[in-house]
């Protein structure tokens, strides 16, 4: 008796109904071999950078420890992938570089999603003059050359963050190593996210605008719900699909921006290193020691591939109509 009661429990019904939509998408995703492969590679790389690297670091493998007697050790001679131009363990350097690259990209994407959903959601839900003014601003910002603006923006923030870092170290006695590591990441992340949310805002606006005309929103309004509640409880959850798709495709493009800026020397600075920085350093030893360039370059390209295939696959799975290009 008691089991039948449990089955008809309303909670159960809601869970089933909610999962079936996503389960459908997952079935479609599973059919897409490339996307699944991309997803698996993404998980492996995330595990390597955020789980394996800290564990190895805790056991005493230091990515920044120099050993000048063992420069350019070959694969397997010292460490797993040998050593770089200063005798540092290449394997650890690539993993820790990946940590920084991915951290910047993921943090910036989270900021992008937050800003984009709030801004685009308001613009789409309110609509009218306010909505179109908000979108004109986005259009104007989109017309600006992205990299140039990001470079300038980063330089401005860097000055302020450096001052704060100095204050934290000198006056509050914080650990200077930790502070400096983060002080270098923050300006780049904010600069990328500060101008990277524009496309997300547009996508969110268009889906919010079409959702806010539907009956369930009217029903919610007739129940006397506040605008904030309608927007964040009823409209935002319904546009999760496009937001997830676009966020997955945003991560690789942010990894790319980070690497580009680091490569020209306007991104990550020592003591941090990222894939872009490692590739730039490795390029100097191109003719004598290919491995120093090849390892970060392969990891970097592999990550971009994996995220892009996963994102494309998610788009095909969650939004079959928009999967043409």
């Amino acid at each position, binding site marked *: 008796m008691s089991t039948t009661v449990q089955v008809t429990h309303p909670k159960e019904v809601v869970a089933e109904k909610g999962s079936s939509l996503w389960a459908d998408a997952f079935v479609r995703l599973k059919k897409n071999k490339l996307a699944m492969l991309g997803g698996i590679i993404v998980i492996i790389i995330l595990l390597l950078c955020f789980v394996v690297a800290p564990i190895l670091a805790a056991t005493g493998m230091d990515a920044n420890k120099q050993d000048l007697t063992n420069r350019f050790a070959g694969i397997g001679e010292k460490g797993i992938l040998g050593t770089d131009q200063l005798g540092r363990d290449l394997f650890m350097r690539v993993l820790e570089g990946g940590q920084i690259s991915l951290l910047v990209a993921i943090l910036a994407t989270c900021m992008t999603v937050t800003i984009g959903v709030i801004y685009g959601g308001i613009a789409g839900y309110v609509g009218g003059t306010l909505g179109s003014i908000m979108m004109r601003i986005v259009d*104007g910002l989109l*017309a*600006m*050359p992205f*990299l*140039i*603006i990001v*470079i*300038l*923006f980063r*330089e*401005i923030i*860097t*000055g302020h963050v*450096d001052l704060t870092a100095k204050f934290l170290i000198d006056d509050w006695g914080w650990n200077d190593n930790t502070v400096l590591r983060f002080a270098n990441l923050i300006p780049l992340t904010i600069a990328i996210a500060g101008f990277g949310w524009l496309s997300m805002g547009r996508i969110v606006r268009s889906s919010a605008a079409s959702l806010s005309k539907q009956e369930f929103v009217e029903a919610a309004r007739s129940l006397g719900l506040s605008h904030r509640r309608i927007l964040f409880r009823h409209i935002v959850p319904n546009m999760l699909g496009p937001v997830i798709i676009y966020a997955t495709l945003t991560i*690789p493009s942010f990894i*790319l921006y980070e*690497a*580009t800026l680091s*490569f*020209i*020397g*306007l991104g990550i600075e020592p003591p941090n290193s990222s894939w*872009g920085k490692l*590739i*730039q350093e*490795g*390029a100097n030893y*191109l*003719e004598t020691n*290919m491995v120093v*360039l090849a390892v970060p*370059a392969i990891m*970097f*390209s592999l990550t*971009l*591939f994996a995220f*892009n*295939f996963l994102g494309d696959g998610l788009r095909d799975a969650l939004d079959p109509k928009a999967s*043409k*290009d």
Partner: protein
Amino acid sequence: MLKTILSRVTQTIIVVFLLVTFVFFAVRAIPGNPFASDKATSPEEQAALEAYYGLDKPLVVQYFNYWKNVAQGDFGDSLAMKGRKVSTLISESFPVSLKLGLLSLFLGMGIGIPLGIIAALFHNKWQDYLAMVIAMAGICIVAFVLGPIFQLSISRPLTWLNVAGWNRTSDILLPAITLCFGVAAYLARLTRGGMLDVLSQDYIRTAKAKGVPTLQIITKHALRPALMPAVTFLGPAFAAIITGSFVVENIFLVPGMGQHFVLGVTSNDYNLVLGLVLFYGILMGIANLLSDLALIFMDPKLRNS
């Protein structure tokens, strides 16, 4: 058509105005000053330098002075490279960037558009998958990975090709090839999308039913509308190649505009950065206008409206 040109020109003027205004105040908000890197200058000398370049005046006055000078065709002097005018630096580096950008754009079109057409014609067959994997490779294997690979695998075996530098005519080849892959990749994806759209249209089916050969269907009926998304992309892409080729210029030591921009930002050379940004803005407007005109030329529906 006149309406399109007018609206594009107005838009460009607004964007350039906002861009210059933003950058004007942004470069001045960057910590540091342009004369700090000089050999031990006394505060008096610094003040004299600032007065000479008009940097001691209030920001708003400087801002209006800047526009006044620009209206007279004067972009000011470079602050970091003493004795050189910004306009000279731009006129020296722009032809280099333009040549490189145009060549890589044409190479990208030559590779990307046929690839996209093939992918669409063999939709969901191995040719399609292969083309799309190649396109994805073009997006993911970026310039600073490709550049070193090309230096090693192309220019070293071929001894007549320089690894880097900008002295001989052939030096343009490697950076152009490196740059063209990204363009080709996006063009391939856009062309495939456009082609798939067009191929599902009724008039293509009618043409097939009449027995028109496939090649003729593509060239006479399908190609023009199918290329519309690609052409829309080309305008911004051209501006992006010229503005965003810092990396390739860095790898192959090309004396283009990107190098000046990076140097200008790091050495607080306000006038140089502003001049370049102003120039970029105008260039972007022109590129967008050209792609608008190309669209009008291609689509009779746009022409009549």
